[in-house]
């Protein structure tokens, strides 16, 4: 039964108006010139624009949807006569907020059935979108992924840091992903078409590092038969990532300072200065301010590098990322090795969650890679994890999975407390908030293997 042939039911205009005003979907109509002819209350609420301001204006300048220019639903409907239902887009409010919406359109006909324009209804999906994000609750930047608020703060400022061209100092323990962060900065910057070069300053002896960074001219030393460009020259126009900057010698610190200050340097054996258009991103696992205080690092260089300071938190401070990272690594190794490992089982996950990861994300990645060698196409179990992690697992926990996982965490907490107190049982029990006899009972029931040292008589 084609709807359009049936004349509209004779509803009094004021009733139609009341209905339109009371629904929660935004509704507006346009004439053939795309000028707004009516605008309901929900449309005012969602767009933040008063009806008086909207009526008579072009719909694209009122509605401001991502689809207006390239993929206007109303235009398609006006052309084809076919309604569009629930197409996703976003609009931009006067405050610059993106509001996700879904849009439906239809032709607008008068009582005689003639087309007098179009009608668009739209629904605010902000709540749905929020819930969806909450469910995923992760955010990504380059190759980094996290759901930790600490990382979120970092990711939020990264785009602006990237375009600023200022020197950046990334501080973080080994394996937290300093180079990944530097690469993300490069990829977001205007230099991303140009090279990104990474140099580990701790990996090369001083003299070698100097020629590596600045290059040399033919004849600079025996064997230098032709010019060799340094990393500064190779990274021209791009980004140079100097890892472990805290480890370079005082002499090299002076040379680096000069490049940063004057943007020029001389290759070894060269007589003329060379200009360097390179953005420096430096990284260190050390506390550079402390190195300055010790006199091991030049203060002026420190201030030159430390224009923007980004601190990458260690994995133990963002344990919520462990399952997320495990999922990522497993997906990647499955892809690379053409495998179908479904995941980690709860006991193995409990073990991984209770580990401190001194080697951070890199350590976790290596643990998963190692497990891949051993696990076939089954889920990763405690037996596939490195012995130093598994040693913590109670030997006879095969009851059921959740109990085993709980026992694993309990055992880990007890071992950690004991370690903190040099295996003094009484101190550990106090720390854990349990009686010492409860502790002894738990040590026995969990089958924990403790060293003979008991912390009471420490004869150093």
């Amino acid at each position, binding site marked *: 039964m084609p709807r359009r042939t049936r004349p509209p039911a004779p509803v009094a205009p004021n009733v139609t108006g009341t209905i339109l005003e009371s629904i929660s979907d935004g509704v507006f109509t346009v004439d053939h010139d795309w000028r707004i002819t009516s605008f309901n209350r929900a449309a005012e609420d969602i767009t933040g624009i*008063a009806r008086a301001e909207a009526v008579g204006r072009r719909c694209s300048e009122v509605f401001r949807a991502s689809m*207006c220019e390239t993929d206007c639903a109303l235009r398609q409907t006006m052309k084809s006569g076919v309604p569009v239902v629930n197409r996703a887009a976003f609009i931009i409010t006067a405050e610059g*907020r993106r509001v996700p919406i879904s849009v439906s359109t239809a032709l607008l006909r008068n009582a005689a059935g003639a087309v007098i324009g179009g009608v668009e209804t739209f629904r605010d999906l902000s709540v749905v979108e929020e819930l969806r994000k909450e469910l995923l609750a992760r955010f990504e930047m380059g190759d980094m992924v996290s759901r930790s608020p600490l990382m979120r703060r970092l990711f939020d400022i990264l785009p602006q840091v990237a375009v*600023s061209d200022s020197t950046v100092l990334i501080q973080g323990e080994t394996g937290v992903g300093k180079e990944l962060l530097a690469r993300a900065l490069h990829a977001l910057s205007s230099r991303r078409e140009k090279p990104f070069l990474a140099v580990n300053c701790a990996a090369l002896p001083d003299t070698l590092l100097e020629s590596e960074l600045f290059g040399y001219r033919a004849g600079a030393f025996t064997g230098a038969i032709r010019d060799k460009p340094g990393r500064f020259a190779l990274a021209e126009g791009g980004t140079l990532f100097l890892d472990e900057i805290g480890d370079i010698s005082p002499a090299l610190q002076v040379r680096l300072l000069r490049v940063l200050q004057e943007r020029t340097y001389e290759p070894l054996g060269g007589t003329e200065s060379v200009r360097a258009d390179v953005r420096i991103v430096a990284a260190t696992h050390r506390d550079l301010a402390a190195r300055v205080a010790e006199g091991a690092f030049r203060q002026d260089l420190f201030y030159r590098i430390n224009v923007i300071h980004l601190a990458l938190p260690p994995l133990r401070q963002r344990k919520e990322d462990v399952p997320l990272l495990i999922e990522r690594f497993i997906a990647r190794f499955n892809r690379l090795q053409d495998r179908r490992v479904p995941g980690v089982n709860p006991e193995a996950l409990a073990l991984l969650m209770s580990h401190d990861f001194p080697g951070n994300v890199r350590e976790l990645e290596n643990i998963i890679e190692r497990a891949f060698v051993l696990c076939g196409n089954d889920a990763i179990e405690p037996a596939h994890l490195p012995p130093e992690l598994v040693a913590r697992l109670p030997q006879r926990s095969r009851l059921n999975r959740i109990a085993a996982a709980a026992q694993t965490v309990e055992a880990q907490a007890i071992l950690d407390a004991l370690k903190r107190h040099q295996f003094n049982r009484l101190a550990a029990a106090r720390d854990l908030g349990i009686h010492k006899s409860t502790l002894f009972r738990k040590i026995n029931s969990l089958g924990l293997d403790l060293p003979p040292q008991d912390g009471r008589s420490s004869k150093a």
Partner: protein
Amino acid sequence: MRIAVSVWEGRVSPVFDSSRRMLVVDIVDGRAGDRREVELPADSPAERVSHLRGLNVSTLLCGAISRPLAEWLQAAGVEVHPFVAGSVEEVLSGYLSGQLNRADFRMPGCCGRRRRHCGGRGRQGEGR
């Protein structure tokens, strides 16, 4: 000095975040000189920002723009005049004569010099 106006069908494009073309105009002695229309890269904001920088654009006149993108552009040294509406030629001459704040160049719902939302009806509005 070089300015850019995002364009669509001869008018300022309604949403800069998804607009596809812009007019780049060199301003010499307060007058519009050389001009050319260029394409904007598809939706990646990073590409949009570096594209404008690559063209040495110092000022952008555009329609609606999401706040993060506007801030990003400003951090990259591009002055942004957002929520501008009207035909490209009129907007251009309005800008050159310092009259961009005129009401007829404003998108509905946006007002004042800083083009902040000025209340009225809308989300903040109480029921009537």
